[in-house]
Each structure stands twice: as structure tokens, then as C-alpha cells.
């Protein structure tokens, strides 16, 4: 029997293209890694297509490439194509460029108006395109999301997008493995988003650099697929390019019957293969960290990176709790957020609530938010945006009455897209505004110049929508 291997190792080994002549890794050369699925969007691809055109190269595998429009698309239902051209000529030109590139190279594209369109990291799993054991890349750092199905998925730069378009391969050094073990059962009101915020708070945002996370433990196994996606999504915020969760029955029942998932005999064969993927007993990770899931609380960020997170009932740290060399950056973050050391966040008035982004815009996220908002009203003067991650999620939420719950509560029900996760499609905070957001980044200006972001779960966001203040969902529900 071969020696025990981790899930990461198994996927990696299957995708190394054996070099001709040289023993690549032995000479410090990167490995050539074959890509099973390449996801493309409008923002990070134009320069890569230009490179191809300049060199007169074809796209090697359009059948393994899939494009969508998400980042610069408006989510205001009243903005149609013609209006977008006037409101945002540059964004509109970028969308046109993607369309032209996809037509030229025969790449399937889910353009505006297509029922399959949505945020790239929402539609991949939703279509069953991202499957266990695959390598998946995209010119987007949150490609780590797809690791939830047991695929090795990571973000790449635009030069690399060009490499994959032209060769279906990437030059990569093998990362190290990092087991992130979350034991125990999550308490009431604590969800996947709180797990990952707690992980990043523990490790710091550079803690996973050079590593691939594999999330293990009872609390992870108990998550549904969409919760697992939330966890893997934010692996990059811990510095790891990828996050993995071993495929299991939850994964298989999620994938079965999805449009691009294998069917019939191919499904049975795939299952056999996928069952061989989980990390073997006795396999060794380069590092391991363990968290007690039963001790977690709803988390909220106070600063300007996702590692600056605290339990919602806690307080912003005092200066002397911060290592001396980090104090200047800590102070800079608090200045930006207009917060004081030692301050409680709970009760802090807010201006906007954003439920959306590839972290938390799936159907179950909307269900969670709707369960809190049902029969209630959002606070006076508060702007609440609910932005489904895909057109499919939107339609399902409309069919099932969730959309009506949001509208009745006084929230805005929007078209699918990245929306206020990043300020490039018209949805953004005004300078000085505070938002509770279910997205993944609270960087300075991420949600609009001068905007201030508290990252939290959909439950916390919905509870805060009712009160107009940062609110512990457990108080609203009790």
C-alpha cells in the first residue's frame, strides 16, 4: 500500500504534467499543473485575451472554460444595457470586451440576461461544474470557495489567466498543507461565517501564506455545502490561496442532478473516485491548528482587515493587547473606522446592511436572513440591500417567498452580482458610512471610498437590519 496522503496531495499528484527531459521540481522549477476548469470574468481577463491575440494563439480548451459577468454588472433592476452604457461607459465596454472575446474563442459565456449568470463562485458549484478532485482556477482570489466540494481551487493573476487560456496549465510551486481543525458543535446563532472569522482572527491574515488549508473536524463536517463554501471562500483572507474540505455524502447529495455533474454510469464511476479522495488515516500535514467550535460566538470585525475580528459581545482591543510593532497599523485602522480601543461594537449605529457577495449570497444565506426578518421591519433610515449571488438563487427566492419577506421588511431586493462587496458597479457606501456586511473584505474603501465595514454573518446582518445597530442575533431571536 502507498503511504498515507492528504486530500491536497492526492489532487496535486493527479494534475502534475510529467515534464519531458527535466525533473522539474528537483531543479527548483515549478510544476506544470493541469487545470480542469477555468472560470473567467470581465475584470481580470481582457489583458490576457489581448496577449493571446498578440501572439496569435488559440484558447486550448474552451470546453473547460466558462465565463460570467459579475463584478461590474449593476444590481439595480432599473438599469438596463442602454442605461448602463450612459452611466458606466467603461464598465459597459469591459462587458462588451468579454462578450467579444468569448465569441471569438468559443468560450461559453453567461452574459447579462442569461438565467445561469451570477457571481463566478456562486455559479460554479450551483451548476455542478466544480467537482471533487478537480483543479479549478479563476482570476479572482475567492476561487478558494470551490474547495468546499473537495476541489483544489485557487485565484490567479491575469498573466496566469493567459497561461491557462493558451495551455490549460499553470506553473506552480507546491504549497504546504495546513489542517484547520474545528471540533465540537456550534452553539445556537453561530454559523459558518463565524467559524472562518474566528479562524482568521486566530491566525492573522498572513497566517496561511504558502499553505493550502484543509478544514476538518466535527463542526466542519456538520456544515451543509453552502456553509462549507462560506468557510473555504475566506481562506484567502487567512493568506492561504486555497481551502479544502473532503467530499462526503453531503457533497455528493449536493452535486447529484446538477446540470454539469456526471449522470448515470458516469455518476457511479465518479462517486467511486471521489470516495478515494479524503485524507488517509495517518497522513501528515505541515501544520495543524485546532479550534473548539462549541466555544465560538457570533463574530464581527472592527478594523480594516478580516483578521481584526472579535466576538460580538466583546470589545475592540486595548492598545497594550497589540504587539508593539503592530500598534501603528492598529491605530491607523481605528482612525479609519472612527473607533476607540476598548469600545464595544454592539449597539453601534449603522447606515447600511449588505447581505450578498460570494461569501454569503446563496439560498441558505437568504433563508437565514429571511428567518430573522420575517414579520419585522428594517430600522428607520437604514438602507438594506439583499443581493442574491446568482440569477438562479434570485428566482428560487422569489418562488419561495423569501424575496417578499425582504420587500415587506423594507429591504431592497436586487439583481445578482458582486454589488457592494467591491465598489465598482454603482453599489457603494458613502464616505463615513458604517455597514454590517456579509462580504469578505473590510479593507479601507473596499465598499466605497471612506466607507466603514463590519463583516459578519447573514444572521448578524439581518438582526442589525432590524435595530439599525450592530446587534447580537441571539438577542433578537430569544
Amino acid at each position, binding site marked *: 500500500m502507498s503511504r498515507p496522503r492528504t486530500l491536497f496531495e492526492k489532487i496535486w499528484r493527479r494534475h502534475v504534467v510529467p515534464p519531458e527531459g527535466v525533473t522539474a521540481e528537483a531543479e*527548483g522549477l515549478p510544476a*506544470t499543473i493541469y487545470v480542469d476548469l477555468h472560470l473567467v470574468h470581465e475584470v481580470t481577463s481582457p*489583458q490576457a485575451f489581448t496577449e493571446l491575440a498578440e501572439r496569435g494563439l488559440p484558447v486550448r480548451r474552451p470546453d473547460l472554460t466558462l465565463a460570467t459577468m459579475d463584478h461590474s454588472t449593476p444590481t439595480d433592476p432599473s438599469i438596463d444595457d442602454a442605461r448602463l452604457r450612459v452611466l458606466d461607459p467603461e464598465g459597459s465596454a469591459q462587458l462588451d470586451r468579454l462578450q467579444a472575446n468569448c465569441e471569438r474563442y468559443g468560450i461559453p459565456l453567461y452574459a447579462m440576461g442569461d438565467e445561469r449568470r451570477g457571481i463566478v463562485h456562486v455559479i460554479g458549484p450551483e451548476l455542478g461544474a466544480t467537482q471533487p478532485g478537480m483543479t479549478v482556477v479563476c482570476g479572482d482570489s475567492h476561487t478558494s470557495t470551490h474547495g468546499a466540494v473537495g476541489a483544489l481551487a485557487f485565484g490567479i493573476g491575469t498573466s*496566469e489567466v493567459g497561461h491557462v487560456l493558451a495551455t490549460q496549465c499553470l506553473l506552480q510551486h507546491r504549497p504546504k498543507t495546513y489542517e484547520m481543525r474545528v471540533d465540537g458543535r456550534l452553539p445556537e446563532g453561530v454559523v459558518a461565517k463565524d467559524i472562518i472569522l474566528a479562524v482568521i482572527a486566530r491566525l492573522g*491574515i498572513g497566517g496561511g501564506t504558502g499553505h493550502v488549508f484543509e478544514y476538518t473536524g466535527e463542526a466542519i463536517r456538520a456544515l451543509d455545502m453552502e456553509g462549507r463554501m462560506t468557510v473555504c471562500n475566506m481562506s484567502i483572507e487567512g493568506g492561504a490561496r486555497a481551502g479544502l474540505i473532503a467530499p462526503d455524502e453531503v457533497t455528493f447529495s449536493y452535486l447529484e442532478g446538477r446540470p454539469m455533474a456526471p449522470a448515470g454510469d458516469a455518476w457511479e464511476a465518479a462517486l467511486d473516485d471521489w470516495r478515494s479522495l479524503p485524507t488517509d488515516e495517518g497522513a501528515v500535514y505541515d501544520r495543524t491548528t485546532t479550534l473548539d467550535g462549541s466555544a465560538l460566538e457570533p463574530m464581527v470585525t472592527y478594523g480594516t482587515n478580516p483578521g481584526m475580528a472579535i466576538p460580538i459581545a466583546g470589545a475592540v482591543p486595548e492598545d497594550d493587547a497589540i504587539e508593539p510593532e503592530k500598534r501603528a497599523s492598529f491605530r491607523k485602522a481605528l482612525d479609519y473606522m472612527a473607533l476607540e480601543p476598548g469600545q464595544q461594537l454592539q449597539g453601534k449605529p449603522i447606515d447600511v446592511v449588505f447581505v450578498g457577495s460570494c461569501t454569503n449570497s446563496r439560498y441558505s444565506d437568504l433563508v437565514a436572513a429571511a428567518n430573522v426578518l420575517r414579520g419585522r421591519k428594517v430600522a428607520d433610515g437604514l438602507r438594506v440591500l439583499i443581493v442574491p449571488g446568482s440569477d438562479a438563487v434570485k428566482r428560487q427566492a422569489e418562488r419561495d417567498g423569501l424575496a417578499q419577506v425582504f420587500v415587506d421588511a423594507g429591504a431592497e431586493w436586487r439583481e445578482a452580482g458582486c454589488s457592494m462587496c467591491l465598489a465598482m458597479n454603482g453599489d457603494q457606501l458613502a464616505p463615513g458610512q458604517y455597514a454590517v456586511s456579509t462580504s469578505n*473584505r473590510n479593507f479601507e474603501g473596499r465598499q466605497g471610498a471612506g466607507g466603514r465595514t463590519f463583516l459578519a454573518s447573514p444572521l448578524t446582518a439581518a438582526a442589525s437590519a432590524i435595530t439599525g445597530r450592530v446587534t447580537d442575533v441571539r438577542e433578537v431571536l430569544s
Partner: protein
Amino acid sequence: MSTSFTRYTGTMAPLPIQNIDTDQIIPASYLKVTDRSGLASGLFSRWRYRDGDPEGDPISDFVLNRAEHGAARILLAGDNFGCGSSREHAPWALVGYGFRAVISTSFADIFRSNALKNGLLVVPVAEDVSAALFDAVAADPATEVTIDLEAQALSLPGGGETNFEVDPFARRCLLDGTDQLGYLLNQAPAIQAFEATHPARLDTRSG
């Protein structure tokens, strides 16, 4: 765009902030370009100009707006530089502005990879070296250092030098101008052979 690097001597612009993310290096509002140019004015725009607007007033105490650092082509930054988004627009903006190298105690993975593909050298140094460099620049903004990629050496202001790590493949590419896409294209026969044993998992055109 030149993607080579051998040796550079010059002054440093100090930015002693940790975890500088790519949203600060180049905000999303600049990501609507369809080429690589025109990003220099957006570089650090939220820290560089009032209201983040390049048409507006420069913020006088931001390092790039200070006369003594205006000509610096080496960025000396805090730990974990380039975290966050995978946008290659970040190194494009830095290179567009004129930066040749970034010195920090660590770099985010994707940023490092993107930078090296664009001739922007990332120079990781130990904490004491970083601290010494910040002190030296604070004492004398005209302090020069030399970065020698061939020798993987960084000269220190007080004399002496320190070695730095760089991915050997990226180093080779920077030194001799090897084009990484060309290198991959040369592997076409191996890729084809691999494809024969590795059937496609799906056909995206069937969705």
C-alpha cells in the same frame, strides 16, 4: 513592458504599514481598464489624494507626495504586503508609477507571483533588516540601497549586505528575460500526452 531585472541602486519610499492590501494599492474603481496602462495615477489613490481623486489635492504627508521621496523607485513596506485581491493591476500600477522593487518582511502569495511576472522584484528581508532600513530612511531620505538579483543580495545602508530569497525559476526568468508563457507553450507535447490520460471532467459548453 520590460519584465527583466538584474540590479538596481536607488532610494526608498517608506510605507511602514502592515498588511497593505491590493485594494489600497489600486482601488476597484480603476479595474475597468482593458489594458495594462493608465493605472499609475490610481496607485495608492485613497492615501495619495484628497477624496481618493487624482484630480483633487494631493495629501501632502503621504510618502509619494513628499519631495524627498518623490524620486524613490523602491517601496519599503510593512509586513504581508499585497494581501487580498488577485488583481494584477496592483503590480501594473506600481510598475507604471516607476517602482522597480518592493522590500518587505513578507508578501502575499498571489501578489508575489504577479509582481515577478511584471519585472517588479519582491525582496523579503528579516525583521531587523526591515527595521534598520526604515530607521536609515527616516534619518536620511537620500539613503540608497542596491538590489542585486544575480547575487540575491541587498546592500545595507551601514555597509555590508544581506541575502534574500527569490523563487529560482522567477529569478531565472527575470535575469534572462525568459517568457513564462513561452516556456509553457514549449511543453505542448507533454500537455497533450497528459490530456490523453486525463479525460475532461465536464464540457462547459453543455451547460
